[in-house]
């Protein structure tokens, strides 16, 4: 600890912190534009210049480390003069048209100019004109407003992993540009909208649709990946206008993925199911909820039907909330059915209670990471971002996979081989660990054997631990854990994958293809969401009465005798158990559109109609309270030893912009796909 003085007040601070960090930690305001705590220091905007005693020139607070005895003045005449002059310089080429700027009212430049600028400019010449660039469907540009702070450039390079934007040209002609004729393709690109301190980069879908002060802020949780990013939905007139991150260092830091940011656009998609629909010949016709439930009673009430065990089959997605899953499970028990596919995107997991086994933020405490399988960039881009950060701090990140994904990470080792060769590979690593050679590593196995220690985290992707081949090499991984005390974690992808595996721990996540009396498909479109969509098709053909509960019509609806409109995530409430087994509740952001209802309510009323016992829930939280949560952590892989012979391997390539119903209905996210397909 060292002592410094800020504005005459003595404080003790950590060594190697910068003036701006000290000021931020002590509630002393220093204006800034280019500085951002998560990005490298550029020191180019000069707004944070402060007077420091015994220094002839003012120093940038963002780039100057404190030293013992330093005296800093954030309000002195010199500091104020610097602030005022930089403000004046920044504004000479900035269009002062805040009333027609989308950033107006939430603009750092506007606020800072009010607080630190002079009311009058002495500049009377013409202002610079910069042509706008097309950066794709998400980010809109108004480059006249750009103040060249380079936050967006640094973000894409450092956090996104690829320099997709740059500052081209010199001096006054410096401007932000993507590569020639390229748009920005990062899956977390939308964060540049939040980072931009002015109105130069704004949200294309949100543009000109609302003012910041007109919207109500509602907190929610991301339903799109197992991280469960904290979101803030901005609502106007019952509609979600935009989604922004809520800062949470443990999970998403201050970022969210583009999928989290723009999926709200799907809420009002034309394919929404507006009322309950009943099959009439080749088409469906609207009916009332009451008629729909009466039909369900007729078709599903055990007293009116002769059901044997396993006569009713269930399909749900990995976004199903704890509460919804709890009701599905109760219903299945009522029908004495084990035929539940609770995570349609995957086969059965060969590991019990797959979860990260540690906290997300603790990933960064490890010295090395080995990524086994996983489509991280398309499934959990913000966890990948943490690995990228680790790599840039010199930590070792390695990949073992059977498909070569471009992770935009500086990798130590990259091993791409067929999954059938993994066994041999791990055997060799184990052998090399045991021989512990001092020689320079020539092979990937030798190198990995040296990397692995008790400071290593092995991250296993869900497509690997739900692959039948996994059981062949998993015991060797356990042997490596015995030798090295390496730690491991799993990377389930879905918002509630961890919760579903916990609730359905006695189910195998497979269903038999046989004759059924009835089926229930919930929030799924088999054309996209199944690892094995043919299986679903065959079950539909063999089942007598098929119900689909979904906010949207599917690509193919001919099998469904009854379609019920459920609410989308933003109209729903419930909870997810995220990748680190953290139970996260969310409430309704907006009222359900049309006649749709939250799924838990539909299931509850269904249960009442068919006289399911203990279904008298009045609120969602009453259900939540019924669910016992237990956090499972393991030192070693807890394998499911039972051979699951009938399981067919169906590798499903994850596409971040097609991951679930809402994402697929978001126009902006689909436009990205079309743009890429055209190339």
């Amino acid at each position, binding site marked *: 600890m060292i002592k410094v003085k800020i504005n005459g007040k003595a404080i003790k601070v950590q060594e190697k912190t910068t003036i701006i960090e000290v000021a931020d930690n002590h509630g002393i305001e220093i204006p800034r534009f280019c500085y951002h705590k998560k990005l490298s*220091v*550029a*020191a*180019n*905007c*000069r*707004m944070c*210049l402060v007077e420091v005693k015994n220094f*002839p*020139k*003012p120093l*940038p607070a963002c*780039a100057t480390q404190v030293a013992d005895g330093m005296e800093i003045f954030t309000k002195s005449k010199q500091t104020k*003069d*610097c602030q005022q*002059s*930089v403000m*004046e*310089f*920044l504004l*000479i*080429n900035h269009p002062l048209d805040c009333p027609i700027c989308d950033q107006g009212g939430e603009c750092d430049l506007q606020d800072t100019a009010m607080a630190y600028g002079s009311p009058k400019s*002495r*500049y009377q*010449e013409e202002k*610079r004109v910069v042509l706008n660039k097309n950066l794709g469907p998400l980010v809109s540009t108004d480059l006249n407003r750009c*103040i*060249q702070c380079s936050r967006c450039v640094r973000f894409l390079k450092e956090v996104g992993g690829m320099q997709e934007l*740059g*500052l*081209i*040209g*010199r*001096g*006054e*002609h*410096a401007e932000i540009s993507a590569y020639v004729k390229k748009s920005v393709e990062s899956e977390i690109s939308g964060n540049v909208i939040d980072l931009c301190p002015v109105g130069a980069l704004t949200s294309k879908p949100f543009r000109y649709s609302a003012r910041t002060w007109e919207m109500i802020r509602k907190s929610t949780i991301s339903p799109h990946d197992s991280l469960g990013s904290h979101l803030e939905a901005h609502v106007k007139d019952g509609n979600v206008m935009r989604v922004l991150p809520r800062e949470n260092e443990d999970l998403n830091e201050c970022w969210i993925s583009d999928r989290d940011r723009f999926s709200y656009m799907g809420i009002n998609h034309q394919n929404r199911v507006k009322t309950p629909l009943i099959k009439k010949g080749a088409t469906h016709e609207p009916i009332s909820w009451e008629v729909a439930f009466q039909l369900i009673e007729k078709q599903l009430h055990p007293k009116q039907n002769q059901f044997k065990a396993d006569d009713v089959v269930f399909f749900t997605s990995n976004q199903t909330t704890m509460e919804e899953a709890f009701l599905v499970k109760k219903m299945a028990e009522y029908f004495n059915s084990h035929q539940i596919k609770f995570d349609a995107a995957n086969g059965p997991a060969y590991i019990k209670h797959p979860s990260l086994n540690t906290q997300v933020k603790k990933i960064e405490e490890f010295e090395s990471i080995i990524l086994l399988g996983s489509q991280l960039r398309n499934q959990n881009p913000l966890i990948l971002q943490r690995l990228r950060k680790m790599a840039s701090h010199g930590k070792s990140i390695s990949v073992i996979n059977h498909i070569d994904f471009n992770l935009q990470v500086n990798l130590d080792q990259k091993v791409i081989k067929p999954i059938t060769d993994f066994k041999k590979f791990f055997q060799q690593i184990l052998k090399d660990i045991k021989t512990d050679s001092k020689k320079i590593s020539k092979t990937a196995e030798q190198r990995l054997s040296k990397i692995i220690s008790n400071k290593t985290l092995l991250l296993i992707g869900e497509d690997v631990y739900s692959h039948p081949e996994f059981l062949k090499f998993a015991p060797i991984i356990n042997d490596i854990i015995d030798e090295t005390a390496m730690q491991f974690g799993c990377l389930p992808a879905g918002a509630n994958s961890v919760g579903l595996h916990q609730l359905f721990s006695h189910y195998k996540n497979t269903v038999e293809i046989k004759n059924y009396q009835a089926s229930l498909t919930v929030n799924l479109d088999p054309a996209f969401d199944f690892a094995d969509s043919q299986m679903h098709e065959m079950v539909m053909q063999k089942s007598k009465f098929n119900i689909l509960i979904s906010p949207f019509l599917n690509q193919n609806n001919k099998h469904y005798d009854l379609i019920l409109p459920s609410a989308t995530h933003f109209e729903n409430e419930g909870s997810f158990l995220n990748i680190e087994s953290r139970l996260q509740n969310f409430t309704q952001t907006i009222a359900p559109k049309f006649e749709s209802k939250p799924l838990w309510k539909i299931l509850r009323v269904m249960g009442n109609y068919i006289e399911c016992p203990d279904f008298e829930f009045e609120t969602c939280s009453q259900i939540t309270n019924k669910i016992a949560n237990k956090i499972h952590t393991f030192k070693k892989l807890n394998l499911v030893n039972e051979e699951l012979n009938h399981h067919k391997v169906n590798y499903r390539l994850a596409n971040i912009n097609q991951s679930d119903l809402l994402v697929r209905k978001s126009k902006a996210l689909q436009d990205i796909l079309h743009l890429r397909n055209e190339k």
Partner: protein
Amino acid sequence: MNEIVDKNLNLEITNKQLFNICLRTKHLKNSNSLETYKSIGGYEQIKKILKNKLDPQQLIDEIKISGLRGRGGAGFPTGIKWSFMPRDYDGIKYIVCNSDEGEPGTFKDRDIIRHNPHQLIEGMLIGAYIMNAQVGYNYIHGEIWEEYVSFEKAIEEARKAGLLGKNIFGSGFNFELHAFHGYGAYICGEETALIESIEGKKGQPRYKPPFPATYGIYGKPTNVNNTETYASIPWIIENGGQAFMAHGVKNSGGTKIFSVSGHVEKPGNYEIELGMPFEQLLKEAGGVWKGRKLKAVIPGGPSTPVVPADIIRNATIDYDGLAKIGSSVGAGSMIVMDETTCMVSALKRLSYFFYEESCGQCTPCREGTGWVYRIISRIYQGQATLDDLDLLTDVSKKISGRTICALGDAAATPVLSFIKHFRDEFEVFIKNGKKLVN
């Protein structure tokens, strides 16, 4: 260091002459060939150093005694700068010769490369030995292609003669030197922008600290020195620090090339003993042309303050002599202006240069240089008021000292000094809307 100098030397201020150290071979036939350089004892110094494995610290002391200061403009003592390089660094270290002279009126490094490239190479070899660097670059200004080509030839000659590469003179010392042709941005002459440019990035200065000596090319310790600085080294090692010092005056050891341009009869490069009176240098350059009177001089290049004739007339040309009259040696690009020079047009041209060459990274320089140029243009077009002179001064002061690199200061300097010394002329121009002189 000053102590050593003071103790050992009793300097004569008078009787300074032209004396070629860096341009030793300029008047010889085939001046740039290895043969010519060897004929005057070239590469003997590095040979001596390597054969006898001389102590680097001793060599640094010798350079400190010589009083050699960085010839690129900042004038930082070279011996001290070289001692900043970490000695026992485990890994590659770089040295860079900065031949990116881009300021209007600079053309000395070009002559060194053109006429005496091997002395520069030997200087870099000695530098590499002292700082234990394995790789060197000569970053050559983008606009001089022929010199880049001829320097490549010189490197090749040296390589073939076993003077560059592995195991030089059988000593086990390795040094590889590369010529790097710049892309013609003034900012790349700033050492950290130059480093970025060598790395293949856009030439933009880095924030310092860390300085290149700890974090340079690819994050490795790097030393950047001017061409003339490196080219002075072999002579200093050959003749000793004191002998070099004796050619100059206190605080300004040795000789320095002045690139005299503008309104003189014989513009060109003059390597002078520092401390030479200005009048003498002007005479060497043939005096003011066409028999006209001297109006003003920019002694060290546009980034150094302009000095009116009656002030510079009694000055000596050395670091202290020019500091005394409120200017500096800079890179020695002396621009002489006769009585017909319109100071408004001159300043307009200079401020256009800085406006054009600002890298655009930090706010005061990016926005300020354009603003300054526009105000001066407004004066030039007769559309300004007297208040604009104060505005001009104020804006320049707000650029100066508030930027990442020295370009902001360099851009402000001419504005502040022109208005300081020639305010009347600006006022007359504003009042009449036209030039005072024709």
